């Protein structure tokens, strides 16, 4: 196990290096730089030249890459050219929004999918199965920006709930924090529910159709215990892996929902960093998210292993 983890960490470092070099190249290829954006249409050419020199943009690409990695080795992600603040402290500020948002919405969609999907699989073709199919269709086709706006208007204007779109850190007011985060969590959970529910249902159908299930039934094991413990354990590796992927996707991919609810999350920071061509900040976020995604995959691989140790050996061609 230890060797396996070390190997994964080594490959993670290689992935991070490749991703960050790729980011450098892409940002160098696309038009515009931080100075051009800062000057806009009202500054003079001299202003532009001075800003470019000040940001070190007049140096060659290899020079800039070398400088960047020199900083990275000493664990310094650099300073954001737009915010004039330390990149790591900017990222750190966002985690209180982004991580709970990702975890909570994934937890909600995952548990709903497990319960509904298992029951739907058990009573295939029944009423609940029909409802689930409708949910899969609906949740999969509702755009998150539309649902966000709808909920925002509904709760804010119709029900007059105050505090939506007014982010407060939990250390200041738990109530304010929950009000600000509640709706975005729902929107994100709905967005993930569709594919998750479908996968749980289909894996459960496979699992319930296997031989051991029939013999366990004959032996007289309780139905609830059978479905939710034994069958689900067999069926869960697929959904768990998907869960990990969805969680990883949410870490940087919630910019739209964050913008509508004015949440200071990582996705919005990333979007602004790219728009402003804030190279240091883009790099910092890319490296951070890559690291987190790799870590997340590792954690979920271990989870799959813990829940169902047989999965590995079976996939390897054993039983």
């Amino acid at each position, binding site marked *: 196990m230890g060797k396996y983890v070390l190997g994964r960490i080594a490959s993670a470092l290689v992935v991070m290096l490749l991703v960050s070099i790729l980011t450098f190249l892409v940002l160098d290829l696309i038009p515009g730089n931080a100075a051009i954006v*800062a000057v806009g249409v009202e*500054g003079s050419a001299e202003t532009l030249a001075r800003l470019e020199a000040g940001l070190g943009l007049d140096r060659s690409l290899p020079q800039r890459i070398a400088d960047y990695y020199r900083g990275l080795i000493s664990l310094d992600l650099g300073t954001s050219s737009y915010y004039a603040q330390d990149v790591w402290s900017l990222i750190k500020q966002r985690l209180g929004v982004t991580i709970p948002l990702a975890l909570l919405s994934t937890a909600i969609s995952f548990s709903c999918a497990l319960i509904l999907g298992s029951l739907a699989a058990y009573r295939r073709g029944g009423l609940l199965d029909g409802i689930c199919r409708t949910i899969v269709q609906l949740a999969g086709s509702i755009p998150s920006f539309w649902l966000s706006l709808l909920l925002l208007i509904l709760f804010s204007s119709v029900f007059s709930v105050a505090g939506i779109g007014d982010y407060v850190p939990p250390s200041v007011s738990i109530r304010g924090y929950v009000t600000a985060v509640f709706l975005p969590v729902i929107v994100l959970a709905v967005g993930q529910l569709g594919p998750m529910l479908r996968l749980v249902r289909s894996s459960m159908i496979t699992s319930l159709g296997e031989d051991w299930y029939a013999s366990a039934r004959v032996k007289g094991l309780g139905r609830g215990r059978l479905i939710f413990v034994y069958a689900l354990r067999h069926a869960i590796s697929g959904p768990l892996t998907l869960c990990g992927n969805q969680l990883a996707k949410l870490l940087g991919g919630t910019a739209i929902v964050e913008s509508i609810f004015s949440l200071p999350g990582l996705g919005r920071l990333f979007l602004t960093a790219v728009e402003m061509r804030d190279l240091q900040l883009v790099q910092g976020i890319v490296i951070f998210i890559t690291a987190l995604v790799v870590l997340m995959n590792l*954690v979920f691989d271990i989870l799959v292993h813990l829940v169902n140790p047989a999965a590995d050996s079976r996939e390897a061609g054993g039983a």
Partner: protein
Amino acid sequence: MARRLLTFLILFSAFLLASCSGGQDDGAATGAAGGTESRVRMAVTVDPDGLDPHMSASASTFQVTSSIYETLVTVDEQGNIIPSLAESWTVAGDGMSITFSLRPGALFSNGNKCDARAVAASFQRLLSESVRSQDYAFISSVEVVDDTTVRFNFGQLNVVALSTFAYPWAAVVDTSCADDLRTSPVGSGPYMLSSWIPQQSLVLSRNPNWNGECGIDQVEFVMMPDMTGQVTALRNGQVDIILITGDLVGQFEDDARFTVNALAGNGLQLMAMNNASAGLDDVRVRQAINYAVDKDAVIEAVWWGYGEKIGSHFPVVLSEYIDMNDLYPYDPQRARQLLAEAGYGEGELTLRMYLPRSYQEYVNAGQVIAAQLEEAGINVEIQIVEWATWLSDIYNGRQYDLTVVGHTGRLDAYSLLARYRSTAAENYFNYSNDVVDALLDQYNTTVDDAARMEIAHRLQEILAREVPALYIQDPIQIYVTTSRLEGFSVFPINIFKFNEMNFV
């Protein structure tokens, strides 16, 4: 087994939650509003890019820094120069120097003296390090006459010198903390920075060393990128000031809880044409385009009528403005005729129009204009590009035929029109006219006000005739505030004076 898994999950989430709540503490102080303190909250879409006025070129920075720092002089709502840090000033007879008398006893927010020596040091920094230093190259030396008197000597005559001291980028900073001003600003204005969490909020509190008027104790800029979010926040009392688009006026107009302030800015919006590209290098084609577009319809469709139609590159609010709207009225027939004269039959001219994605109003305007040009027999290929790309390829790279964009206000005709000089780097129209070049040279050295006014009129007229661009409108900005807020106003260079506001 299941229990072990559960324990692991709980520990894992607890770890993540714990690791992230730590970073929030610095900003915690901004959350709850103080009991008797008056705080005005304004929704803005983007953060400032640092708070050092000498090192920034972005409007989002100046809208914050103009409350933290003072300029020597400032402007009133009409754009007249009025005292600020300087109580009075005298311009030398030959126009080659200005002497300012400073407010005695002025202090920076950190307690340092803001005297003539500090002002001179700040301007030395502006001249040698600022991104705008070129704009102040006419200053040859800064002399400290006594504690409250400072004299600027000019190396070359600049008739609009006084107004250059009013721009927010000429603010007086405490040079003893120059290196940290971007994140820890120190000025002599009514407010000082109390906290700033990017993309969340920036809070200013009263500067204890400020002795002037101050009706509001705290100012909070709340970053809200989405318009729906801003509107609901205003309705729920989470913010006090928002900037809206014309379509939303209706829902606030008849509501006693809100005040709608429609204020003429001194910016302008236009469709630029690349005067060097095939077809557009012929003045008849550019005139045809002006005849083909119904500006009133564009203003109605895109800005819901909130804007003043213009016929030249000049905002309506400036005193030098002359009305050139009658030159090319909407006349599609005449447009076709001119196109035919220039050798382009129906559908024979194809133009590429690039529109900046971040500015929905310019995208909309471009699409309406394109439809009208198609009706006059010109093919338009629209491409929507990201803002940074637009700046790089279209504005700086000049690879385009048509594009729609806006310019923000200046206090004098010269800084407004200098971009039409043939050799100017900012001349993205690729416009070239010797007469305009000569007039611009002349303007800057003409001391006589009437003669200068005459030159400004001639420049407007030439641009209106040769139409290097389709000049659309001088936009009207619509701010909605809670009606409890009094004294809200916007000054011609887009600055706010929060200390002159108060709650009733």
